[in-house]
């Protein structure tokens, strides 16, 4: 399956891009996708450990199972306001 990854703030700067396309085995979780991201973007690996995750614009846990076409976002510690 194919999912879209989105990076923001420090994660976007480390990745050098705001989004990426990931090809994953069916049944992959957020944690598996994040490991794939860390392999594809080694400079982002340390940051991923300090990020929360969102799937289709809702916060999601690392054990959440992804579906084809999902949008996975890395959410660094927020600082709005």
């Amino acid at each position, binding site marked *: 399956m194919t999912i879209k990854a989105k990076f*923001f*703030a420090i994660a976007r700067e480390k990745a050098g891009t705001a989004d990426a396309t990931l090809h994953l085995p069916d049944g992959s979780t957020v944690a598996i996708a994040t490991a794939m991201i860390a392999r594809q973007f080694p400079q982002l690996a340390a940051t991923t450990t300090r990020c929360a995750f*969102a799937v289709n*614009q809702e916060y999601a846990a690392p054990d959440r199972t992804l579906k084809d076409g999902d949008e996975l*976002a890395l959410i*660094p510690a927020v*600082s709005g306001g």
Partner: protein
Amino acid sequence: MNDWLEIFSTPLPVTEATAFIAAPGAGGIALFLGTTRADTSATGQSLIALDYEAYEEMALKQFASLAERARRTWPVIKLAIHHRTGRVALAEPSVLIAVSTPHRADAFDACRWLIDTLKSEAPIWKKEIWSDGPATWVEPGTKAEN
């Protein structure tokens, strides 16, 4: 429309939001503006602005969730949640919360809860732009927070 939820890349429409929030049934309106505060870095640089970035589609969903939860707790008549993206100069507002309720205590309480919860939940980030040297992403809990 009773909720005005929006992310702006241009200066926040404070006057328009204040007019929007007025309602015949309202006895109190609370308006909060979060503004860029002057600061000095550990190396003596002066803060000149904050750059805001948002995951806009998700942030707007979060704003809708905040509005719904506020309405479950307080008798909110109208509310506005606005946030900036891009560069916000010293003293300019980056966030606006406005709430109207029949009585003032609820307006203050709802407004306070909305800004506190927005800051902890909304996928929005700020970067400090200094007079010299590299810009820095704000990490919650550091002194630039709040």
